[in-house]
């Protein structure tokens, strides 16, 4: 009897201990939300954001993910950026640390598109404890640091600068084409005219950094960023949180509207479903991840929460590729037939708010997009006719490759049905995400039919045509290994076309040729569905950057 009682007591203690541990793991503080929101911006308060992932690092030379860029852009600035507005207005190029956007008219672009001159705004200061005023030399130092960084993933945007490759190869001590004309002026000379270079200067890889700070923190620069931006990162607990506070030196830039809240708290490892519940309880202000698809329709249609849901189509597209090196996809009529076979309206329905159908190459928001344009209608009869003309009156067998990340497996079934309706028997092969990414890009995989997605590096159609439809190399982003001499010639010529309207027309011409040759079937454009709390003001989703945290405020000042 005595033993049994001891056993019971110990088991009870164990259960209590388990409960205590579980509670500490889930515990968080609550706060009350207060009065109804007003529309005028208000200073003060803390913005609380959740992310499931975590930036791998905040070194601007290396970081290239939504979480990293959203937080990095609080601290680091570049010469140029995109307007901090939702919708089409967000695709406009504007100056950040430069005084103006270089154009042919203001002399910022000269020598036929080979020379770019940037004038630095005066009195830009690094954050404390550095506090020094930024000069053109700081830009040169930061840029050369980035180009020499072994892990820098984006150097290829800038190897067109005179002397850049020699510098990277260790044959020169600096990049001869990157000149410090005077403390307020940088002049960059390219080997040949390249208008997209201007857009590449918006990317955080070109952020200005402090040599003194980088020397002081060494390898820790990845964890301890310091720049000129409106906020400074004061703490980073790996796997848990990052805290940012206002940079007192930012006001010297005379920019309004980018420092409303006093503090920002980013919480990581947050399951998106839990984050949604926490937001509804008043513990979170902004969801860093999209609303879980399973919850989206319910929340959107809820009378209480629907008004806090914000949706924006992203400058991104998801598409089918056909490997033109693999029979029968080397036959243009087969590829056109498949374009007629796929029902993108059905795919949009299946996505239930996570995407909108796309029937052209350029998504909405990207210059070159044409409202209402549809290259191929859904026409199974036409598809069968083309297949017969191509020599496949009874269709053929093939394999459709995909990964296991929702919604792809569901879409794969829709695509399989569409193909079966015209006589093409496609078996589906599913792989995990990273395996598929490595598999599909290699010629030796013989990956004949699959899907891919591409989101913008910067908001210009050259970013679509170049990587995806020119220069097919093993392991590159041109999954169909397709090219066309007319498109390549137009693409190369577009690099020196300084008239913006003419340039866009050239890209639409390229799009026409590509869609005629049909190595791809455009499917949809993803929609980012986000949500903010009752007390968050000024919230919007940027078409390119997604988040501009520095623009949001707390309506209750808390």
């Amino acid at each position: 009897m005595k033993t049994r009682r001891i056993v019971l007591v110990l088991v009870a203690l164990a259960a209590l201990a388990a409960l205590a541990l579980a509670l500490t793991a889930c515990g968080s503080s609550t706060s009350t939300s207060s009065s109804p929101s007003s529309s005028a911006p208000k200073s003060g308060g803390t913005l609380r954001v959740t992310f499931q992932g975590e930036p791998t690092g905040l070194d601007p030379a290396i970081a290239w993910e939504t979480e990293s860029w959203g937080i990095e852009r609080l601290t680091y600035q570049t010469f140029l950026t995109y307007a901090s507005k939702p919708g089409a207005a967000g695709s406009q190029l504007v100056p950040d640390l430069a005084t103006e956007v270089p154009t042919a008219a203001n002399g910022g672009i000269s020598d036929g598109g080979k020379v770019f001159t940037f004038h630095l705004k005066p009195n830009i200061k690094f954050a404390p404890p550095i506090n020094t005023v930024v000069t053109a030399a700081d830009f040169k130092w930061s840029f050369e640091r980035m180009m020499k960084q072994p892990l820098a993933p984006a150097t290829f945007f800038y190897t067109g600068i005179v002397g850049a490759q020699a510098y990277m190869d260790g044959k020169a001590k600096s990049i001869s084409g990157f000149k410090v004309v005077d403390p307020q002026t940088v002049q960059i000379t390219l080997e040949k005219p390249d208008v997209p270079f201007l857009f590449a200067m918006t990317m955080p890889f070109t952020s200005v950094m402090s040599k003194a700070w980088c020397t002081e923190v060494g390898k820790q620069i990845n964890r301890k960023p310091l720049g000129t931006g409106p906020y400074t990162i004061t703490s980073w607990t790996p796997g848990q949180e990052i805290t940012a506070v206002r940079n007192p030196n930012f006001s010297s830039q005379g920019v309004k509207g980018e420092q409303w809240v006093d503090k920002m708290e980013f919480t990581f490892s947050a399951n998106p479903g839990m984050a949604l519940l926490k937001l509804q309880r008043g513990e979170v202000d902004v969801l860093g991840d999209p609303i879980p698809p399973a919850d989206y329709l319910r929340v959107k249609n809820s009378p209480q929460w629907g008004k806090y849901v914000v949706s924006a189509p992203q400058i991104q597209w998801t598409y089918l590729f056909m490997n033109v090196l693999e029979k029968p996809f080397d036959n243009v009529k087969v590829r056109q037939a498949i374009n007629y076979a796929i029902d993108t309206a059905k795919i949009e329905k299946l996505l239930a708010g996570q995407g909108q159908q796309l029937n052209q190459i350029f998504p909405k928001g990207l210059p070159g997009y044409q409202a209402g344009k549809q290259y191929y209608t859904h026409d199974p009869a036409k598809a069968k006719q083309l297949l017969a003309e191509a020599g496949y009156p009874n269709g053929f067998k093939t394999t459709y490759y995909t990964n296991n990340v929702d919604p792809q497996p569901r879409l794969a079934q829709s695509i399989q049905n569409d193909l079966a309706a015209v006589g093409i028997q496609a078996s589906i092969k599913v792989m995990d995400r990273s395996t598929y990414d490595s598999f599909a890009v290699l010629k030796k995989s013989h990956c004949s039919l699959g899907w891919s997605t591409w989101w913008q590096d910067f908001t210009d159609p050259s970013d679509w045509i170049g990587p995806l439809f020119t220069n097919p190399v093993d392991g590159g982003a041109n999954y169909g290994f397709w090219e066309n001499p007319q498109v390549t010639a137009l693409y190369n010529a577009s690099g020196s076309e300084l008239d913006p309207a003419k340039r866009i027309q050239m890209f639409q011409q390229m799009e026409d040729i590509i869609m005629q040759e049909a190595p791809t079937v455009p499917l949809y454009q993803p929609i980012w569905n986000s949500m903010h709390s009752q007390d968050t003001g000024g919230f919007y989703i940027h078409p390119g950057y997604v988040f501009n945290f520095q623009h949001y405020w707390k309506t209750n000042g808390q």
Partner: protein
Amino acid sequence: MIVVLFFVSLLTFLLFFLGGSNPAKAITGTHATPQVLARINEYYGFDKPLWTQYGLYLWHLVHGNTGTGYQTQQAVATAILQRFPATAMVALSGIFFELAIGIPVGMMADRPTGQFRHRGRLVEKAVCGPPTGQGGQVAFHSAAAIRSR
């Protein structure tokens, strides 16, 4: 012990590299060009034969050099130390539960009467057995106990 450590290190190493993933692509994302990926492969030695890479890995490890994370760029030693408190808590909790269950069961097993003693022995083996490789014996004895009814 050394043999076990060797095989654990080999298995961990192989799982990482044979899993079909591309570490360079994991670092850069899918937009990097093949030239960029080649540069990163060269930097980290991913382009060397697997046995060469493993040899280098062991060499660094026995010299106390755990290196830096591919994606985080943080010193691995620092990363391990930062996670140590959480790991310690989990390990200590495990030990606590083993004691909380094991001690009373052990006491049951210690009683001189037949049935409790036998059952206590079985549970004791079930709790302590698997970690020390006696799980198979527990299954055998349990099966024997059921058969003998």
